[in-house]
């Protein structure tokens, strides 16, 4: 059964890619591409669920497909969980793509888009199964490159190429770190299979274990966009086609999380407490700064991209807490930490995928990503608005949807910090609690802005006024993820034990799938707390029905009348009187001015005859992107400097190049002789 699903998955993706090659254009072509991706993802989803449910891993090896070590695939619980994530978002994105990519016909290469989309999904699906270092790295590169081509789809738009270059540079810097990491892990015998690494990692010296940790954090962190390695993310994700953005933000960056958990917990079997501390710290900083920068963003898709940084941060807070507990041998709490991180991973995949698809629909309808030109879309695109609202509530961690459940778990794992014997370490936890709470509050503020400015009130531009609802396929894609958001929120008592089973055995974690849940509700370890989103949702629904009923019984006045908005009696309301996104975020910009360091520029043109009459006022205010300035400025300068030195080696003469090769060969042979 599993093998069939596995083969269906692979062949569907390949067929989809093949169909795209043959006929990219036309409804049939698009249909085949989407169908391939959708069937493949659905098969992947089913396969993942099956593996988690049965607990039996799926293995597949072929020595011939890849030189040196051969391809080794093994789908265990952890991989299966990530396969579910891939399948969920991939399926929704594929369905959505059918409608969405229609607009590309004739403008951009649908052929390339279709091929790369299917290949990316294939690479992602296989990535989580890789069972030796070489397979892992090859798939990692395949994933990075296909994603790069997808980012470049709208290559003639401003910023796309630049974003692509940034993405490629960062992801390869990370890739280099990963190669070094695997080299270290493989030890003297250069074994590459994960099983032998698992055995060998314990024998490594603490120093090289620490180096492995730092390399893993850098390599996987660059992929998931942790701060300060995040700069490429808000550039690359928004410029890609929206269904691809959903995939990039929802799934691709999660591969970094997968890698971290796989390497740190599974292969290395945990580490000293400071590893966890560093991961937690990086997570906390990413979460807070991510949401703070998102607040200042008025490009809907860039806003969502910054929220990806934030949510990766939240995931890392959970995982960092798990690592800390793990180092103290508090295994149940450690499991709770990892569970909260992984739960947030799938939650973020579903709601961020949903939000990016929603943003895509808005972009599709209005042709702009600038929130200041939107407004009033809730009347023109009711379904999109509803789905986007679901996503907004979920990402703001409001009950009873899924975001709340996983944040609750993260909170609970941090609260478990009181069990840590050394208070110097434990004191990290309350600070993380504070930061996490601030993050979730700010996220709520940000999504009031995102939803309120985009969908509510009066349209701010002609485009928004003439917006139209998206075609059914796009709505179906969003609906799928919206249902996932609700379901994941209402059924934590299914998900959490499943995650407990997924994690069981990794790095010595016990099987905790019985610990955390009690019929319909969630329980933190040691019976620390319990909560039931299911009952809360039922209660809310019940009250929502009861209140109007009671009002009916008591014969409340039910008359209503539509009138102008009350604006102190002024004559007409235009969209220019509305609050803008900038205005909405202004109080927070002032509060956090020390961080944003906003620049202000005010120029007033006076009437030539009298300076009492103003002809025009221009006000410009920007926040200083000091990561780019302080961190990457010097780095870029250094790279340019080195590059200019290297350029001297280039002469254009074939003889010289052959000479270089000869010298290098000689040196290598000499080194090999004495080592």
């Amino acid at each position, binding site marked *: 059964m599993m093998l069939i699903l596995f083969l269906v998955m692979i062949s569907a993706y390949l067929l989809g890619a093949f169909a795209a090659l043959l006929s990219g254009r036309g409804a049939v072509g698009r249909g085949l591409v989407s169908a391939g991706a959708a069937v493949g993802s659905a098969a992947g989803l089913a396969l993942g669920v099956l593996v988690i449910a049965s607990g039996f891993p799926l293995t597949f090896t072929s020595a011939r497909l890849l030189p040196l070590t051969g391809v080794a695939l093994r789908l265990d619980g952890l991989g299966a969980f990530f396969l579910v994530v891939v399948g969920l978002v991939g399926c929704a994105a594929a369905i959505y793509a059918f409608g969405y990519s229609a607009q590309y016909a004739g403008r951009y290469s649908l052929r390339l888009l279709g091929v790369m989309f299917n290949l990316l999904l294939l690479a992602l699906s296989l990535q989580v199964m890789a069972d030796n270092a070489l397979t892992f790295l090859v798939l990692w590169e395949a994933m990075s490159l296909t994603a790069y081509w997808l980012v470049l789809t709208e290559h003639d738009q401003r910023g796309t190429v630049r974003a692509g270059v940034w993405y490629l540079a960062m992801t390869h810097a990370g890739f280099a770190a990963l190669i070094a990491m695997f080299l270290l892990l493989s030890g003297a015998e250069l074994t590459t299979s994960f099983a032998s690494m698992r055995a060998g990692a314990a024998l490594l010296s603490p120093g090289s274990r620490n180096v492995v940790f730092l390399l893993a954090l850098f390599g996987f962190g660059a992929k998931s966009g942790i701060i300060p390695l995040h700069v490429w993310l808000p550039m690359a994700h928004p410029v890609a086609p929206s269904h691809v953005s959903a995939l990039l933000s929802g799934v691709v960056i999660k591969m970094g999380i997968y890698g971290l958990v796989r390497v740190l917990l599974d292969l290395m079997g945990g580490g000293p407490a400071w590893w966890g501390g560093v991961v937690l710290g990086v997570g906390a900083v990413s979460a807070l700064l991510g949401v703070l920068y998102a607040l200042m963003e008025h490009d809907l898709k860039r806003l969502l991209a910054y929220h990806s940084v934030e949510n990766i941060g939240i995931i890392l807070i959970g995982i960092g807490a798990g690592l800390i507990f793990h180092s103290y041998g508090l295994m149940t709490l450690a499991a709770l930490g990892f569970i909260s991180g992984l739960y947030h991973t799938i939650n973020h995949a579903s709601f961020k995928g949903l939000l990016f698809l929603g943003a895509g629909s808005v972009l599709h309808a209005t042709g702009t990503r600038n929130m200041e030109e939107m407004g*009033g879309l*809730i009347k023109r695109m009711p379904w999109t608005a509803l789905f986007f*609202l679901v996503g907004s509530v979920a990402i*703001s961690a*409001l*009950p009873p949807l899924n975001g*709340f459940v996983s944040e*609750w778990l993260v909170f609970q794992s941090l*609260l478990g910090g009181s069990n840590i014997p050394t*208070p110097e370490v434990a*004191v990290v*936890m*309350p600070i993380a*609690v*504070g*930061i996490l*709470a*601030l993050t979730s*509050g*700010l996220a*709520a503020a940000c999504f*009031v*802005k995102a*939803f309120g400015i985009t969908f*509510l*009130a*009066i349209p701010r531009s002609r485009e928004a006024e003439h917006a139209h609802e998206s075609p059914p396929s796009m709505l179906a894609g969003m609906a799928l993820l919206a249902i996932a958001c609700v379901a994941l929120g209402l059924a934590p008592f299914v998900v959490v034990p499943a995650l407990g089973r997924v994690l069981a055995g990794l790095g010595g974690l016990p099987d905790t799938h019985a610990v955390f849940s*009690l019929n319909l*509700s969630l329980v933190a370890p040691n019976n*620390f707390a319990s*909560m*039931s989103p299911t009952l809360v949702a039922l*209660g809310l629904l019940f*009250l*929502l029905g009861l*209140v*109007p009923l009671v*009002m009916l019984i*008591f014969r*409340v*006045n*039910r*008359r*209503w*009348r*539509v*009138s102008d*908005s*009350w*604006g*102190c009696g002024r004559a007409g*309301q235009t969209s220019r*009187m509305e*609050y803008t996104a900038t*205005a909405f*975020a*202004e*109080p927070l910009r*002032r*509060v956090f001015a020390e961080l944003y360091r906003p620049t202000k520029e005010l120029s007033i043109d006076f009437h030539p005859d009298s300076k009492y009459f103003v002809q025009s006022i221009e006000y410009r205010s920007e926040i200083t992107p000091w990561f780019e300035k302080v961190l990457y400025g010097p780095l870029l300068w250094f790279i340019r400097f080195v590059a200019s030195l290297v350029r001297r080696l280039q002469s254009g003469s074939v003889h010289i190049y052959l000479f270089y090769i000869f010298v290098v060969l000689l040196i290598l042979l000499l080194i090999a002789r004495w080592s």
Partner: protein
Amino acid sequence: MTGYLLEISQALMALALAPGLVGFVRWWKARLQGRRGAPPWLVYYDLRKLFGKEVVISKNASWLFRFTPYLVFSSTLAVTLLVPLIAAPLPFDRVGDLLLVVYLLLLGTFFLALAGLDPGTAFGGMGASREMTIAAIAEPTIALSIFGLAVGAGSTNLGRIVAQTLAHPGAAISPGHLLGFAALFIVMLAETGRLPVDNPSTHLELTMIHEAMTLEYSGRYLALIEWAAALRLLIFFSLLANMFAPWGVATTLTPVAVSVAVIALIAKLGALGLVVALLETRLAKLRLFRVPELLAVSFVLALLAVTSSFLLR
């Protein structure tokens, strides 16, 4: 069974008491200003009148605007089912903990802020923006206070916290406890829109925070929102009272214990109401951009509360 009955009657009692509490604070303020003031029960008349009036809706507003009052009211009412007002532990204690309470209230705020943006007026947007700013900045303090309470009690479930403090009365005067109380008190002022953060009796739109979002509401919708706001005040008061000074809360469901609990609750609400009225007489409203500083004070208090209960074990 009695537990569930008690649960429902507790929610009904909260519903019944909440407008009176608001009226009570107003009455005290009037007295302190040398006025006779409206009787505390005027708020009930207000609500009844509002339920009898027609609703005028902005032509720009969407279904969200009409859905929000019900959601705000329901989510707040749901919280009253979770908070131990008169007895602990309640049968619903396992359904939700303190974190859920906080986030349910945030859910109401979230939708109210959206509804403020919906009619497209500048004031509504302003109110939404300010409310969300303050709500966001108040979150860390709340979370840290919860952390302090939870570490002390070994649980974030409200019933357990109450039971723990009842069992160890000495803990109630520990610095951690008192600092946590002070921190949560400041946050309570911010979250329920009292002075010095927001002036509940202002008529000037530019100084409004909470009310600016509800300027467009009328009739029964307004009644629901005002009632929910009153409930919110009652919830925060009783959280403060019962988390930090839980004496009087019934631990057994005998009629005597329950009636003592009701009386104790009313007394505590009255005392806190008086304190708030005194504060509102004494304090001027802070400039909006000094509010974060006030909340930073509360954050530091909460941080000290946690560290002192955490590092001095």
